Each structure stands twice: as structure tokens, then as C-alpha cells.
């Protein structure tokens, strides 16, 4: 059922003043074929987490703890963090592909779109003939909504939205099981963003890959994700189905985020916002990192860090909900 299992993952950035725990003790499952939204503000560790899973971290970042397990359809497993250079090469693109926010700028400006898709196919699928590769490249472009005659075009001839589509086409080239999308539409206009999101949804239905969709825009995630994980100061504070998070957010941070962005429809409800500023990860607050900004904080919050515990519809790390989790566990046991 799970295609990826992250257990207790920790990532530190080494700095002159000591280690910064960018990602701490993250445990997260990615189910086959789902869209998992990863929400959080800048510095919450969401991109670092994605890069760790894709093995893209470079010093000064280093994985300090935890494991990442990848499960193939045939039942075999791979420990992603232990892959050697050769295995890693086979793992990337074929099993896990990444689309970055700046993907539209990551295309080679002096090579045609076609040759860049061809590169990926030539290296990772050497048994394909030249003709088969050309046909596949044309097919991929059409799948993402670009006319196949653009194969001979250069990146500068395409608009930002088209380049982002081309980057998605390259990610799809080898039918990966997982695609990590790190703010893939943030730099695009809303109308173009909407079209590309439709495209991603349709492609997912067709190919059945799982998506980790990273963005700070919670309202966007609510609409497109199956499940959402909310990160704060390097930790997952709440996981749940998109519906559960929208209708009944349990962590005060999730609730604050939800009531921070203005809505287009319905009554103009009052926006609560979140007071204060995100924590400095060099010296995070003790206990629950959110407690200095939390409107429900009580004395115990600063003393002990709450664990991520199961609640109906997901998991949450907040002491206000510790009772709720116990109830469910009892109910499930009986």
C-alpha cells in the first residue's frame, strides 16, 4: 500500500555556530497513487525533507538519523538512504522524479526540448531505439499539453507555463512511481497554475504515480491533495486527509494557517492570522516549537515536546489532543 516510508528522518545543516536541525524526527508514509500535500512556511523543512528523500542533499546538509524505505510494485524493497551511486542513478527518474519550482529555468537554454527529453530516455532506457525515443518524446509533450512540433524548439521560445509543462514531461519520461513536486506552480499565474494542476491530476489518474506536492499555499493543497502533512520548524505537526484538515483542523498552527488566507466565496469571515514570527531554527523554542505563537498554549507546552499521535482522520502533535488520541486508541482496541 505504501510506496515510500520515512521513519524518524533527521537532517542537520552544519554551521559555524553548531548544527541546525532543519528536519527532525519526521515519520511519514506515501501511499501508492496518492497526492500527498506537504505544507509549511519558508524554513519549515519541507524542501529539505523532499531533497533528503530524493538523495539530493549536499553539504553542509547531512542526514543524521532515520530511514527511507521504497517499496516496488513487485514487493521488493530498497533502502533509499543506502543506495550506492549506480543504484541511485537507476532509482532517480525511473522510480522517483523531481520537479522543482525553478524547473522552468532548469532546462538547458542551448538544447532543444526534444534533445533534453531524449537525454533522459537515452541514459535511463538504453534499450529503446532512436525512433522509439523520438516517438516517446513527442507523446510525452502531447500528454502535458504541448504541441509535438515544439520538440525542436528551444526553452526561450516557450512561456513559463509551457517550460514548467516540459519539465513535468521530462519527469514523466520513465513512468516513475513517485514524483516530488517542490512548489511547481508558485512562479506561475493563477490561470496557468489551474491548467497545470488539472493536467497533473489527469496524468496521475492515467499513470497511477504518487505525488508529493510541496507548497506554502494550504488552500491549493486542500483542493488537490488526498492527504496533507503540515510542517512547522522541521517537524510534522499534523497529518490528515484534506477533508479532515479543512473541516476540523486539530493543531492550532493548521487552524491558524487556514484562517490566515482570505476566501473568495461565502461570508467574509474574520481572519485570525498567526501572531509572532516563525522560529529561528538555530535556537528553537523548548517543548512545542509553536507554543510562543499559539493561542491555546498552556504551561506544559514549553516543557515537553508533544509526540505525533493518532487521532480520527490522521495524526497530530499537540498536547491539546493527547486525550483525543487515547480515546480513539481505546475505541479501536475494543
Amino acid at each position, binding site marked *: 500500500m505504501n510506496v515510500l516510508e520515512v521513519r524518524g528522518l533527521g537532517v542537520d545543516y552544519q554551521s559555524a555556530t553548531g548544527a541546525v536541525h532543519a528536519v527532525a524526527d519526521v515519520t511519514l508514509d506515501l501511499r501508492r497513487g496518492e497526492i500527498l500535500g506537504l505544507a509549511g*512556511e*519558508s524554513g519549515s523543512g519541507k524542501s529539505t525533507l523532499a531533497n533528503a528523500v530524493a538523495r539530493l542533499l549536499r553539504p553542509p546538509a547531512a542526514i543524521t538519523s532515520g530511514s527511507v524505505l521504497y517499496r516496488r510494485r513487485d514487493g521488493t524493497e530498497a533502502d533509499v538512504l543506502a543506495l550506492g551511486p549506480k543504484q541511485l542513478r537507476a532509482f532517480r527518474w525511473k522510480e522517483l522524479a523531481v520537479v522543482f519550482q525553478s524547473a522552468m529555468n532548469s532546462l538547458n537554454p542551448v538544447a532543444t526540448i526534444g534533445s533534453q527529453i531524449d537525454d533522459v530516455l537515452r541514459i535511463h532506457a538504453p534499450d529503446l531505439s532512436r525512433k522509439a525515443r523520438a516517438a516517446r518524446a513527442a507523446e510525452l509533450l502531447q500528454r502535458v*499539453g504541448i504541441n509535438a512540433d515544439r520538440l525542436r524548439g528551444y526553452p526561450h521560445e516557450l*512561456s513559463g*507555463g*509551457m517550460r514548467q509543462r516540459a519539465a513535468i514531461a521530462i519527469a514523466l519520461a520513465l513512468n516513475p512511481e513517485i514524483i516530488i513536486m517542490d512548489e511547481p506552480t508558485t512562479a506561475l*499565474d*493563477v*490561470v*496557468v*497554475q*489551474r*491548467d497545470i494542476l*488539472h493536467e497533473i*491530476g*489527469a496524468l496521475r489518474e492515467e499513470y497511477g504515480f504518487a505525488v508529493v506536492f510541496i507548497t*506554502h*499555499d*494550504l*488552500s*491549493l493543497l*486542500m*483542493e488537490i491533495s488526498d492527504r496533507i502533512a503540515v510542517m512547522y520548524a522541521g517537524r510534522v505537526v499534523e497529518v490528515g486527509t*484534506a477533508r479532515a484538515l*479543512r473541516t476540523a483542523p486539530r493543531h492550532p498552527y493548521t487552524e*491558524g*494557517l487556514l484562517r*490566515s*488566507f*482570505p*476566501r*473568495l*466565496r*461565502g461570508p*467574509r469571515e474574520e*481572519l485570525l*492570522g*498567526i*501572531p509572532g*514570527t*516563525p522560529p529561528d531554527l538555530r535556537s528553537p523554542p523548548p517543548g512545542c516549537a509553536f507554543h510562543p505563537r499559539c493561542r491555546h498554549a498552556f504551561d506544559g507546552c514549553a516543557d515537553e515536546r508533544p509526540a505525533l499521535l493518532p487521532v480520527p482522520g490522521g495524526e497530530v502533535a499537540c498536547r491539546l489532543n493527547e486525550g483525543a488520541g487515547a480515546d480513539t486508541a481505546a475505541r479501536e482496541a475494543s
Partner: protein
Amino acid sequence: MIVLEGRNLTKHFTAARGRWGRRPPVRAVEDVSLALRAGRVSALVGESGCGKSTVARLLAQVYPATSGDVLLRGEVVRAHRGAAFRSYRRQVQLIFQDPFASLNPFHRVRYHLARPLRVHGHAKSDAHERELVAELLERVSLTPVDQFMDKLPHELSGGQRQRVAIARALAVRPVALIADEPVSMLDVSIRLGVLRLLEKLADESGLALLYITHDIASARYFAEDITVMYAGRLVESGPAEALTQAARHPYTRLLLESAPDPDRVTPRERQRHGEPPSLADPPGGCRFHPRCPVALPVCSTTVPGRTELGDGRWTHCWEAAGD
């Protein structure tokens, strides 16, 4: 009371003669009229490249308009340099998107705020200057004041920097403030506070505020009226609530449908909407007609005039004109 007004503003950027001869001008802004009233927040909404920042710079006299006028309290101004520009800048101030780029990393907060006070002659003495700086910091809620005064930009968060930028704009005691995407680089949890601050300033100090954004949902909450711009032209305007709840122009409707909305109930339709046109060679007639679902034959030939819809609403659309 109308403080700042643009009348039929047009801006064409001409590129220098290049290796392949003269390139066509970029028609960035075409026939834009806009009025800012004292104590009121008006929003200008549009996608990137639609010319909304160009309108801001025309209003701020950063560069001259190709045609059309900017009026400050009903008088035409042309103040692009020298003393006239400085005196204009005392009345109309700008706030930019990127608070990481708009503050000098080598100077403390105190310097950033004291400088406009000196240049524009508001500070009488060092003690008076300090007092004014403290007052400014208080107005943008950077308290305790003493602590923030001597900080360097890198010691501040994005939201705090943007507050310093706002305080700096206020230092000259302007009558109009143009905020060009003031919160789009800030974290979601921080945005609200900065927008509330701008709203409060307009309300308390009687500032005329132009809030330029791509986010129509935030315009619904923070502006009293919204003007929508597409490919260099205005397409629709009206009171914020009426416009967002019952848009008249097909482009405004597309913008509203495309905005992320967790409450959306309609199923995902699969339709490609295309992309905005190049402003070097914009389509004739209504610039939205190639993407418009209800385009009429006349739309591709003639620019639609303004159709008044009552209650302060108007639109440029042939479909609305026909009713």
C-alpha cells in the same frame, strides 16, 4: 476626495535599435484611468506582465507616460527629476515586493528611517529625529522601539523588513501610498499582519492607498474597490464585494475560477485556457478575445468602450455592452 488620479495613461516601451533593426514597441499600458481617494484602499488586480507595476510607476512618476496625465489633487503633474520630483515624492510613496532587496544590508533600521526625514527636511535636530524614528517604528508596530532601531536588515524577518519599508515610506508624510505586491514574498502567517497595518494606516491617517496584487481573494478582504487589468488594459472595476461575487467580465470570471479555493464544490473541468498575449504584438480589439469563451465577431476588431453597470461598477466588454 480624489488624491491621486491617472487619466488615460498609456505607456509604450521602445527597445533600442538592435542588430535586426527596430523592434516593435511593447504596449505595456493602454488607456488606463484610475483614481485613489483619501482614506481608502483601492486594489489593482492582474497577472504578471499585465502592466500593473507599470501603472504604479507611472503614478509615482518614475518614468513619463507616452500619453495621458497624472493628477495630484486635481492638478496635472510632470515631475520626473530635480526639485519637482523630490516634492512629488514627499506626497506619493512606493512600497515594493521584495523587502530583502529594498533595504540596504549595511545600514541599521535607524538610518533607513532617518534618511528620508533629513532629505525631506522633517527632522529639526538629532533629538527630534530620534523621536520621529521612534514614532514611526511605533506606528508600524515594531516594538519595543529601542530594540529595533539599531538592528541590521539581516536580523529582521521578512515581515519585519516590510514594516521597516512601510515606516520609511511614511517618514515623508505622504498623502498617497502605492504598494506593489507588498505581501507576496512573505509567509502566509505574516501577510495578514502587514495587510492589516496598511489598512489601519489608510483608515487612521487618511492615506490614499493603491494595493497592487495578483491575489484577488486578498483584494476582496482589504480593498474597498477592485480594478482588474489584463494585458495592459483595464477590464472591470467595482466595489470589492460586488465584483468578486458577481463578476461581469469573462476575464474576471476566469481569474476567480482559477484562484485556489478549498471550498470549491464544482468538479474539475478539463479545459485549457491558454496564456496572456505578448504585449509587443497584442491581439486587436479586446485583448482577451482569443481566450474568451463568449467572444463575438466585433471583439476581434474593435476595442470595447466602458459600459457603466451602476453602483460604481463598469466593464470593458462587448457582451456586457449588448445587454
